């Protein structure tokens, strides 16, 4: 069995321990991303963009050039960089609010334009940074600060199925997957495939990562894991939705 280095080389040790809450999924997604950057040997040409949301806590997470942008606007900043210098490998890192609500027009249009960028979106079913309001991905019946009696789909609508939507609007050559921090190796493989897709200039690449927010879910370790592994995974099936060869998951 391959033994992975404990800490990715591309991590910025000066900003560790990181600023996420204990039990937060963001750290795992970024660990996977760090390992992928190391394995692909692209630390010198990755540009990491982070949104507003808990993702902003990653502004100095890596020893890679990083830009912390505005809420929902990480996709266009990364598109602008990529269009101006296609040699760079750009990663737009955002939450479900940033990607599916306020920045959804950018996601949809970058995907349909087939921009050669990678969007990495953390689905924690909630607006975490602002204190736990409903997100586009909040589950039917899920209690949040703005759905205190549970999300009533008759009033607040249904959860956004991101990878399903993105795979429907992208061209052949795009890469679309949904992973989970509960399946670290798979998630890491998806992120690697996505970045490889960008490096091969095949097309748009998108990975949604199912993640945890014990702070706003108000769950202990056991319940956190159960919510992720059971409810979320039921609502949001992980897997590859579009691969450049056209193979499914």
């Amino acid at each position, binding site marked *: 069995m391959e033994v992975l280095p404990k800490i990715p080389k591309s991590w*910025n040790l000066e900003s560790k321990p990181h600023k996420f809450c204990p039990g937060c999924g963001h750290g795992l997604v970024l660990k996977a991303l760090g390992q992928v950057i190391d394995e692909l040997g692209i630390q010198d040409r990755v540009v990491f963009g982070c949104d507003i949301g808990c993702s902003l806590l990653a502004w100095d997470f890596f020893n890679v050039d990083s830009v912390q942008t505005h809420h929902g*606007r990480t996709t266009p900043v990364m598109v602008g960089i990529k269009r101006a210098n296609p040699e760079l490998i750009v990663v737009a890192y955002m939450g479900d609010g940033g990607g599916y609500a306020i920045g959804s027009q950018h996601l949809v249009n970058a995907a349909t334009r087939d921009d050669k960028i990678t969007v990495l979106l953390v689905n924690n079913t909630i607006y975490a940074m602002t204190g736990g309001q409903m997100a586009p991905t909040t589950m039917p019946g899920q209690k949040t600060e703005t759905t205190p009696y549970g999300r009533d789909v008759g009033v607040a609508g249904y959860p956004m199925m991101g990878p399903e939507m993105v795979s429907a609007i992208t061209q052949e050559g795009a890469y679309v997957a949904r992973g989970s921090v509960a399946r670290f190796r798979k998630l890491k493989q998806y992120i690697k495939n996505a970045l490889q897709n960008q490096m091969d200039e095949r097309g748009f690449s998108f990975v949604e990562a199912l993640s945890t927010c014990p702070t706003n879910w108000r769950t202990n370790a056991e319940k956190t894991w159960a919510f992720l592994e059971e409810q979320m995974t039921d609502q949001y099936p992980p897997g590859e939705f579009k691969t450049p060869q056209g193979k499914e998951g």
Partner: protein
Amino acid sequence: MGEKPIKGEQKAFMTGNEAVAWAALAADAEIMYGYPITPQNEVMQYWTRLAPKYDKRFLQTEDELSAGFTTVGGVLAGRRAFTATAGPGNVLMQEPMSMAEAMRIPTVVVIQQRGGPSTATVIYSQQEVTLTCFGGNGEGLRIVYSTSSHQELFDYTIKAFNTAWKYRFPTFVLADGYQAKMRESLVLYDPQAKGIEMVPTESFVGKPGTPGEDRPPAHLRNTYNTEEELFDVLSKNIREFEENAPEITEYEEFNTDDADLLLIAHGIVFRSAAMAARELAGEGQKVGYFRPITLRPFPQEELRQAAAKAKQVMVVESAYGQLLKLVKENLYGMEVPIKTHLRPGVGITPEEIVADTKKILGEGE
């Protein structure tokens, strides 16, 4: 790089939008991002026709938020990048430009003002002065050139790239629908042939070497832990803005010694004001004008000196007091009476100004 788009000097007769596209080419801008809006459309239309011939790029975005943020991205990648917009597009542009302002990203934006919100008129106004100077949640640390002719649109579009990259503040060329759509003669030129050196660009991200090994990583942010941390960043930016202001400010004046009436106008309205002032001066009246070319930073000292010598001033603009607000702020504490000729959303002719001036001067006797 291929051939130069303009060799030496070339006489032309064209619209203002076309002049902007040629100026951006002449300035060696590398990429434009944009979203269609009247009266700015032809900037993009000429750029997309000309750009591929000179190895330049274009991206039509999904809205002006995206046009602004992709422009920010283009600049971060070290390119001379720009966009152009108007009216409601200028409103959306303020979100990305507040990022550029706080992070000192040298974006260039050309604004062709139109009237009112939504599609009130797609024709003309001077109602985007406050928005362009102070829009966004920041302190208005930007440079705004207000042009009055096609020659100036060409000159100041080239200059905007140099100002932006030299001082690292977002820079705006503020014109209007009349300037955008009218045809006028002007001289296009290769800046080098005129001894204008383009300020070199620099990448903010993707410099050579591995971050953390060969060089420190770029960690660009607008997120701070404490009020004091933000205050320190802002204080530095404000200090640099104010220190550089005297070098950046530009203005024009006429007959300011001992004027009975000093007309104050900017942009295309300034042309009417200048014609009026010269006509009245020709008739022996003591009428002068003061024209701020930079609305941000504002030529405060120069205006105060001119106003100190005048019996009264009159602010003339196609808005209901946006230039007036700037003038009042910059004349604070002075006693010179301020008259106004405010026509929001409509053009102003020299005849109207002459008539109003005569009325005021007549009253004074």
